[in-house]
C-alpha cells in the first residue's frame, strides 16, 4: 500500500495540495450546526447550547490531544482511557481516604502518569512489543490497579472543596475543562509547529530510518510522545473527577474509541492524513455537535453511535471513495 498507489493517486504530489477536501470536515461541522438550527430553530441555536457542547467535549479533547502525539510518531496508545481512570482513582483515594492535600496528590498523579508513559515507551522501544499490544497490556494492568485501590465501588464522600475547585472554576459561561483545553491545545499546537522537538516528532513518525540517518534521536521522540500522552490522559482523568466530585471506577473506558475517532477525523481536517492538534479538537467537536443535536431533536440514543461511526469512515475514506466513484 506504499509508494505505488501513492504515486498512482497523486502523480503531481497532491499531498500538500490544498483544494476543498481538507475543508470538508469543517464545512460539515457548519452544515451540522445549520441543519440542527433549521430542524430545531427554537432550541438548538443558542449560546447556552454552544457552551454546553464546548464544555462536554473538553475532557475528551484533552485526551485526544495526547493521543495525537503518539499517533504523530507512528504509534498507538490504547491505555489512555485506563490512565484517565487510574488518575481519577488515585487522586480520589489519596484525597478522600488518605487525607492528602490536593497539591501532593496532583504531583503523585503526575509522577504516575510519567511512569506509565515511560513504561509504554520502553515496552515499545526496548522490548519491541507492537504498541497496540503493549498498551492493551498496560491498560489492563491499570484497570486492575484502579479496581484494587477503589475497592471496585463508587466513591462520593470525602471530596474536599479544594479538590473539587480544580474542576469547577469558570470564566463566564466556560467551565474549567474548556479553559484547560484552550491553554493546552494552543501550547501543544504551537509547540508542534514551531519547535525543533515538534519537527522531530513528525519526522520520526514519517520515516524513522531516514530520521535516524539525519541524526534525530527517534527513540527519544517516541518516549516523549508516550509520556506526553499519558500526562494529558491523566490530566483529563483528574479534572473529570474533580469536576464530578465523585468517582466511578473505569469511567474513562467510554472515552477511548471517541478519542481515536476524533484524532483520525482530525488527520483529514485541514490536512491530508496528518495528525495535528487543531484537527483533533475539531474532530472532537464534530462528534460532540452531532451527538448533542441528535439528542436534542429526540433521535434514538443508538443514532449517536451510528453517526459517529459513519462520519469517521466517510471522512477518512472519502477521498479514495471519490476516486473510485469517478472511474
Amino acid at each position, binding site marked *: 500500500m506504499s*509508494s*505505488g498507489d*501513492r*504515486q*498512482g493517486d*497523486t*502523480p*503531481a*504530489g*497532491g*499531498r*500538500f495540495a490544498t483544494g476543498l477536501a481538507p475543508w470538508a470536515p469543517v464545512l460539515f461541522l457548519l452544515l451540522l450546526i445549520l441543519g440542527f438550527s433549521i430542524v430545531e430553530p427554537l432550541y438548538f441555536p443558542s449560546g447556552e447550547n454552544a457552551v454546553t457542547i464546548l464544555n462536554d467535549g473538553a475532557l475528551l479533547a484533552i485526551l485526544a490531544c495526547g493521543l495525537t502525539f503518539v499517533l504523530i510518531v507512528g504509534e498507538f496508545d490504547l491505555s489512555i482511557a485506563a490512565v484517565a481512570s487510574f488518575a481519577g482513582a488515585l487522586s480520589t483515594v489519596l484525597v478522600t481516604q488518605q487525607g492528602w492535600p490536593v497539591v501532593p496528590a496532583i504531583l503523585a498523579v503526575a509522577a504516575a502518569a510519567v511512569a506509565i508513559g515511560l513504561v509504554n515507551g520502553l515496552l515499545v522501544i526496548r522490548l519491541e512489543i507492537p504498541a497496540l499490544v503493549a498498551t492493551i497490556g498496560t491498560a489492563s494492568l491499570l484497570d486492575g490497579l484502579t479496581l484494587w485501590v477503589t475497592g471496585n465501588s463508587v466513591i462520593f464522600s470525602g471530596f474536599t472543596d479544594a479538590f473539587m475547585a480544580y474542576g469547577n472554576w469558570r470564566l463566564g459561561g466556560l467551565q474549567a475543562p474548556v479553559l484547560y483545553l484552550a491553554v493546552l491545545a494552543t501550547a501543544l499546537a504551537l509547540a508542534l*509547529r*514551531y*519547535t*525543533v*522537538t515538534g*519537527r*522531530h516528532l*513528525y*519526522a520520526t*513518525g*514519517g*520515516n524513522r*530510518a*531516514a*530520521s*535516524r*540517518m*539525519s*541524526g*534525530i*534521536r527517534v527513540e527519544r521522540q517516541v518516549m516523549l510522545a508516550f509520556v506526553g500522552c499519558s500526562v494529558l490522559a491523566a490530566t483529563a482523568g483528574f479534572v473529570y473527577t474533580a469536576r464530578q466530585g465523585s468517582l466511578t471506577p473505569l469511567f474513562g473506558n467510554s472515552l477511548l474509541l471517541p478519542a481515536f475517532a476524533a484524532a483520525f477525523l482530525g488527520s483529514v481536517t485541514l490536512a491530508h492524513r*496528518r495528525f495535528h492538534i487543531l484537527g483533533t479538537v475539531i474532530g472532537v467537536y464534530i462528534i460532540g455537535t452531532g451527538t448533542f443535536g441528535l439528542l436534542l431533536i429526540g433521535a434514538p440514543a443508538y443514532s449517536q453511535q451510528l453517526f459517529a461511526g459513519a462520519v469517521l469512515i466517510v471522512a477518512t475514506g472519502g477521498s479514495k471513495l471519490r476516486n473510485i466513484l469517478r472511474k
Partner: protein
Amino acid sequence: MPDDGGGGPGPVLAVRDLAKAFGSTRALKGVDFELETGEIHALVGENGAGKSTLIRILAGDHRPDSGEVRLDGRPARFAHPGDAIASGVGFVHQIPAFVPGLSVAENYLLGLPYDRRRAGLIDWRAVYRDCRATLAELGLNVDPRIPIDRLTAHQRQMVAVARAIRRRPKILVLDEVTASLSEPEVVLLLEQVRRLKESGVAIVYVSHRLEEIFRVADRVTVLRDGLRVATLPVAGLTPADVARHIVGAEIGDLFRRAPVAGAADGGRPRLSVQGLGDGRLSDVAFEVAPGEIVGLAGLGASGRSRLLRILGGAAPCREGRILLDGVPCRHRSTRDALAQGIALVTEDRNTDGYVDSLPIWQNVTLPWTRRFSRFGVVRLRQERAAATASAARLGVRMPSVDASMSALSGGNQQKAIFARWITGPVRLLLLDEPTHGVDIGSKAQIYDIIRGLAARGIGILVASSELEELEALCHRVLLLRRGTVDRELAGEGISKDRILHALLEAQ
C-alpha cells in the same frame, strides 16, 4: 500462441497511440511501441518520460485513457495484473514484491500450482528441486527452504527473475532489474536473458544503464515527455547517440574527468582509516584527502556498503581507528558521526533517505533544524529560505519546495538529498550508489554536484556498482575484496575495463 512460427511478421505486442493522464499530468501522450517475436527491445527514457506508465498499463496496473494494446494482433485489455500474467506477459520489477516470512521456494511459486503427490499433498522435494535448478541457472545457489528475508537485495532480484521465467511467459518485461546487481551478476542475468530470447520469448528491457542495452538489446525505443522519439536498431548506434535522444540535447560532460583538486593538497588527510574491521571486514586502511573523490569497487557483497555504514556511524566499528582531520573519532551513531561532519547517503533513498510526510524544504533541513532555532523555537522563514536556496543551487526541479519528495523524479529526489548536505557543515560525504535509479540527464548533474562538493574541500568516498561511474568521478579507486582493500587504482589507471579486470583477476 497458436499462430507463432512467424506466419505473419506481425509483432507479438503492438501498442498504438496510448495515452494516459494523471490529473493534469499527461504521462503518455500517444505512444506507439512494437515488440517482435524473439527480440530484446530496450525501452529507455528519463524518469518521468512515461516508461513506468507504459509498463504499468501493460501489467494491468493502470488503464489507458485512449489507444490500444494488441497481443498477437488481438486487442488486449487488462483490468487486473492477473489478466496480464494469464495472457503470457511476465514482469520483473526493480523492487520485486515478495511475501516476507515465506520461503524462497514459496515465493518462487507464488500464485502458481505446486507439484503434488497422489494424495493431493504438496511434493516439497519436487518443488525444491525445481526451484534450486532454476535459481542455479541464474547463478544463485541458495537453500530454497530459507525465508526470503534472509536473502540480500540482489539475491531476491534473481528469485524474482526466476519466478517470472517459471511462468513461461511469451513476453517478459524486465524493469530496471540490474539496478541492485553487481557486474558479475549482471553478466549472469544478461546471459539468461539471451537464452530466453533464443527460446522465443520477446523481451522488453528497461534500464538506465545504457551500456547494458548495447550488450543485449536488438532494438531500442526512446521515450521523452510521454512520446516516442525514436525506435532504432542498436547495431550502429553509440551510447552517446542514445543519450542524445533521451535528453533531447548533447550531454558532453557526463564522463568528463574531475580535476584533481585538493588531492595534491599534501596536508593532513580528511579521513584516515587504520586497521578497521568488524568480523566481515578486516584490516581496512586508506586515506581520503580534502577535496578528493575516492571510489570503492567490489564484487557483490564485498562489504562496500558495510564499510560506509561503519564510517557513517550506522554500524559499529569493532576494530581499528577512524581519524577525521587527524582527530580520532569514536562515533556510536549516525548522530555522533553527523555532529563531526560525516554524512552518509544510503543506497535506498525511499527507505531511509527522506521523510515523505514532510515537505521538500523540511527534508533539506532535516539534520539541521536545530541550527535554525533559538531556545528550541525554529525560525521557519529563515529555515525555508535556506532550504530553497540550497535546492535552487543544485537545480532541483520541483513544483515547489512545499511539495512532497515523492512528487519528484528519482534524480531530483537525489538532488534534494544532496541539497541537504550543502545546507550544513559536512567534512566527509559517504555516498552509496549515488545514482541508483536516476536517469541519465540527472546523473550528469549529480556528477557535477559531487565534483562541486569536492571542490569545496569535502572529502568524498563513493561506493558504486557502476564502473563507468567510478571512472567518471574518482581520483582514486579502492578495490575491496574479501573484506579488505586489496588494490588501488589512480588517475589514468581508472577505467571501467581496468577496474573490472582488477576485480576479476583478484578473485
